[in-house]
């Protein structure tokens, strides 16, 4: 099963140590064969809004708010509980903030 874990903005700025610990955590996820993809999202970007097939784009930057996704990890796990346990470990490192864990539907 695949789960997308996202982290939102609006939290305290990350310091070197936090980046290092998060880096180690991501390496650990990769080493256990669970991490499929990960990345941080640029705050520049465009927002699309469409009505009846006609779309208008608003250029960023995105506000670093509690509602804006700043990074993601796509995980390959065996159950929702595994995803939640891994998420728990992630947030124990980051300490403050919000994000989501959502299953990504796939061929299995």
């Amino acid at each position, binding site marked *: 099963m695949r789960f997308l874990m996202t982290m939102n903005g609006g939290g305290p700025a990350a310091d070197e140590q936090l980046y290092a610990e998060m880096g180690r955590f991501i390496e650990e996820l990769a080493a256990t*064969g*669970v991490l499929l993809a990960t990345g941080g999202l640029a705050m520049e970007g465009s927002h699309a809004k469409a009505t009846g097939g006609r779309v208008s784009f608003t250029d960023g930057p995105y506000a670093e708010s509690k509602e804006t996704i700043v990074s993601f990890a*796509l995980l*390959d796990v*065996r*159950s929702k*509980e*595994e995803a*939640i*346990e891994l998420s728990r470990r992630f947030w124990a490192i980051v300490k403050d903030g919000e994000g989501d864990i959502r299953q990504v539907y796939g061929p299995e």
Partner: protein
Amino acid sequence: MSVERTVEAVWRLEAARIVAALARLVRDVGLAEELAQDAVVAALEDWPVTGIPANPAGWLMTTARHRAIDRLRRDDRLKDKVAQLGRGLKDHEDEYDLDGDDLRDDLLRLIFMACHPVLPTESRVALTLRVLGGLSTGEIARAFMVPEPTVAQRIVRAKRALVGKSFDTNREEQLPSVLEVIYLIFNEGYTATAGDEWMRPELTHEALRLGRVLAGLVPHEPEAHGLVALMEIQASRTAARVDRQGRPVPLLEQNRGRWDPLLIRRGYAALLKAEKAGPPGPYVLQAAIAACHARARRAGDTDWATIAALYGALRTLTPTPVVELNRAVAVAMADGPEKGLEILDGIDGLRDYHLLPSVRGDLLAKLGRTEEARAQFARAAELTRNGREREALRRRSHSLGRHAGDQSAG
């Protein structure tokens, strides 16, 4: 969220590392697994009362180590070891050493033990899924469609056979055994068609994860990366491999838009690592062939010449009739059906393998030798044990018969 499911999730995530670390302490895989299970039972009893600990994996590890000490205390000969362990335990009461070379070594040792060539294959598979995957006996039984007591017996016998076996294995020599087990598990899940037991795709994932872990632990081994590459690329085709009626769709007829580009990219990345690590072995070559197919946007774009050359290289390493058969198919696509037939004629063996007449029939049909082709498909239909395949082969045979009048017979 239920405590049970959390315990199970933590166990599945940590089983390999916990058993590996315990195995180093007690020098016995079977005992290590039992002690780890004891810790799981303890968690199931305690956590509903005390709440889920802040570090569940650490809790399991520490509890298991306590049990290890208790067990060793009962054995007089190991008093010294107990003193050692006791000291170590006080220093890292709640710490779970996530990183560390010790853990990597322990994990490697456990992988090689579980896949020890002295064990029969099905025992290796069962033990691997149990101690490295954390699957229960019931889950393993359902995955392989054998009775649970059978699996339990295989695991018991495997543990017994490993007692006293040295933990310092010759990794170079035994790596093929490990790769074989992992690929076997993968194929067990991969060749299951849609509508089968839900556990089957789980097997594919289990194998992929194990392969990824192994490749991370032995990055200097090209074949470890090759196996991962092969599995990632094959797994990428899962959605395209069966049609809505659950019938298997041959590679060349699959809707490539349904191939998973993420897994394909991971396959390429693994193949690159393999190439950097050293000369290619059979898994690397098979992965390179799979990558060739993956690179073609449509079946018609396939680089058959390269595939034929890769099968040629594979043949020097593993000169089996099946490899030669696949080479014949590739050569036929690259250089024409006659060239393919020449290779088929040279194959020794495979007398009762349905794919041989099936491929021959295919090539003959392409050459307009319809009567001969029909006979080959009929023969292939007789030989195959798979009902769906037999149906498909019969259909081909009959369709050729129908048009026999349209083709000018040679």
